[in-house]
């Protein structure tokens, strides 16, 4: 895809997700009647621009991976819309989806199960190229070799099998496969959480280098805030199938507005052993996504919850330019927020 065609979206962002939902029915009894739904993803909205990385964080089971898969239509979304450069793809059939598959690629979490153990690395990386008939014969082989080189593997790797590689190397193979068709957006589904910390950094840096080189956009799903902070431009925080806060990296880490984000940030380990910090320990467990709490989903564990929180669901609101949060306590404007922050501070130190 040339630079010119990248820009012709008429201002529409590369990816636009609106009110995306994925509900899994729970069936019981003789007639398998639907007795409820698992609300894995329950109405999330965000956009990703060209060359941008959006980090999607949240604890396990909050639906962040499901969201990634629903966007790629690896699972059918229940409701909502997904637009690529302004064109809706969520209702497309498999055949209609085919041209979009070239633009949207995926890197999976587990580098061991995401590569077919019976195919050589060369065949794995060549598969997308063969599938779209991009290259053939000698040219195909050169292309695969170039891709492997690009992700820091040697050309000899082509003849080997995935089991002959380490976790980090296998993840590089997965990245090479995702890169093969020169996509615009790569959904990274916890691409480093299965790797050693030292290897994590290598893979993250590789992803960032590739972004610079090809102008890629990433939807980076992860549970590790430190990793997300390093790679993302903007970050969306998910809790129980909903996005609770969405803003640029700097303001999220400097002034988290949602109590859940606050708690998450306080759990990030600091490299300084002398540093003292208030740890916010949340009470209880994540409620079940089958019967999420009424009102604000976080109110059962929120240290600042008021009566209204359990009755009324807070809407996503732009509290400051570019800073979205779904919390009743932040309904007040930016100026008032400062005092609110002070009172919560006082409340906590008490």
């Amino acid at each position: 895809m040339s630079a010119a065609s990248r820009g012709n979206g008429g201002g529409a962002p590369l990816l636009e997700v609106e009110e995306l939902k994925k509900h899994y029915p729970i069936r019981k009894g003789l007639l398998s009647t639907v007795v409820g739904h698992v609300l894995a993803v329950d109405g999330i909205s965000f956009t990703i621009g060209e060359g941008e990385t959006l980090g999607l964080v949240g604890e396990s089971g909050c639906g962040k991976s499901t969201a990634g898969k629903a966007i790629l239509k690896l699972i059918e979304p229940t409701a909502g819309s997904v637009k690529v450069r302004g064109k809706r793809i969520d209702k497309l059939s498999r055949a209609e989806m085919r041209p979009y598959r070239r633009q949207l690629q995926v890197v999976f979490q587990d580098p061991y199960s995401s590569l077919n153990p019976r195919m050589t690395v060369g065949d794995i990386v060549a598969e997308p190229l063969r599938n779209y008939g991009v290259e053939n014969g000698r040219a195909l082989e050169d292309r695969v070799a170039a891709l492997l080189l690009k992700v820091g593997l040697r050309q000899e790797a082509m003849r080997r099998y995935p089991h002959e590689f380490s976790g980090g190397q296998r993840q590089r193979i997965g990245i090479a496969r995702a890169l093969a068709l020169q996509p615009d957006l790569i959904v990274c589904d916890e691409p480093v959480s299965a790797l050693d910390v030292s290897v994590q950094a290598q893979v993250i840096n590789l992803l960032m280098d590739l972004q610079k080189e090809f102008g890629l956009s990433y939807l980076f799903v992860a549970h590790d805030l430190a990793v997300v902070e390093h790679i993302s431009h903007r970050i969306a925080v998910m809790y129980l199938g909903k996005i609770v806060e969405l803003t640029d990296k700097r303001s999220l880490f400097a002034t988290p507005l949602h109590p859940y984000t606050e708690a998450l940030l306080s759990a990030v380990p600091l490299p300084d052993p002398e540093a003292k910090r208030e740890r916010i320990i949340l009470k209880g467990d994540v409620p079940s996504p089958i019967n999420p709490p009424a009102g604000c989903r976080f109110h059962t564990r929120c240290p600042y919850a008021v009566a209204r929180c359990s009755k009324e669901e807070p809407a996503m609101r732009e509290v400051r330019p570019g800073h979205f949060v779904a919390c009743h306590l932040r309904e007040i404007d930016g100026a008032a927020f400062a005092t609110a922050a002070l009172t919560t501070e006082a409340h906590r130190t008490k």
Partner: protein
Amino acid sequence: MRREERFLGLKVTPLTRRRLANFRGNRRGFWSLWIFLLLFVVSLFAEFIANDKPLFVDYKGRWYFPVLVTYPETTFGGDFPTEADYRDPFVQKEIEANGWMVWPLIPFSYSTINYHLPVPAPAPPSAVDWLGTDDQGRDVLARLIYGFRISVLFGLALTVFSSIIGVAAGAVQGYFGGLTDLLFQRFIELWSNLPTLYLLIILSSIVQPNFWWLLGLMLMFSWMSLVDLVRAEFLRARNFDYVRAAKALGVSDPVIIVRHVLPNAMVSTLTFLPFILNGSITTLTSLDFLGFGLPAGSPSLGELLAEGKANLQAPWLGITAFLTLAVMLSLLIFIGEAVRDAFDPRKNVG
């Protein structure tokens, strides 16, 4: 670049090499395979081993190959334009007078009736009929060789066809799952409850079943044996990340099934094949024994068993059939065990 090992034109991966070594490691199975192959290859040339026509005739300076070519009796100075009966003393005398001929090891075909028995049929083993004759004066050894061949060929054909259908059906069910799977499974449950034997008896009263009819009829019911196994493998594999990755690459379903899922499902399928072959042979034998199998007069182990039962005063019939079946089925079971060992991932070369 590593040297690629090749065996019979196929790439030998280290895994394949380990499997071959494991197979060889099971001495009993390894020797069983060779003995069985030897017997099978010998029986494939049954016409050259047991036949009522000479292999080679030199008559008045010209060469004839009666096994391969049909010659009228007039060729050898007879009166009839029909095929020469080389067991006829007149023809024999004529050829001996004007040249010579070479007989196969056993000068009887499966349907040759020995009219020159010293005792009433069934005749006990003698220098002429090594395993005696059946109650119609036909040589038991000749019938055994032809019967072995037809049993194994029938078994192999049934195994191959029912595996192809079974694997395809299981693959479709397991890969697509959902409603496809549900309906197909219910159909199989109904279909497998049809009483096969009665159906065969009814059908054989309408048509005289020959080899292919019988194969078709048996196939209608035998294909189900592998379905559950393959279906389970596919149900498991369709959620592997590398299958998801292939879907995200826009690879079509048939290609994913054949390239990504089938190779992994084949291992468990292969270990079942010798046992299915065994079952197929046993089924044919029992049908022949009951008289609903191959048309009357065909050489078959089941018919020999039936004759043994009808002529208990001639124990060589029953004993021969029993020993042949026992040896053949045991060899196949031993081979099956060795194949299972070869594909056992936990087994190391001992």
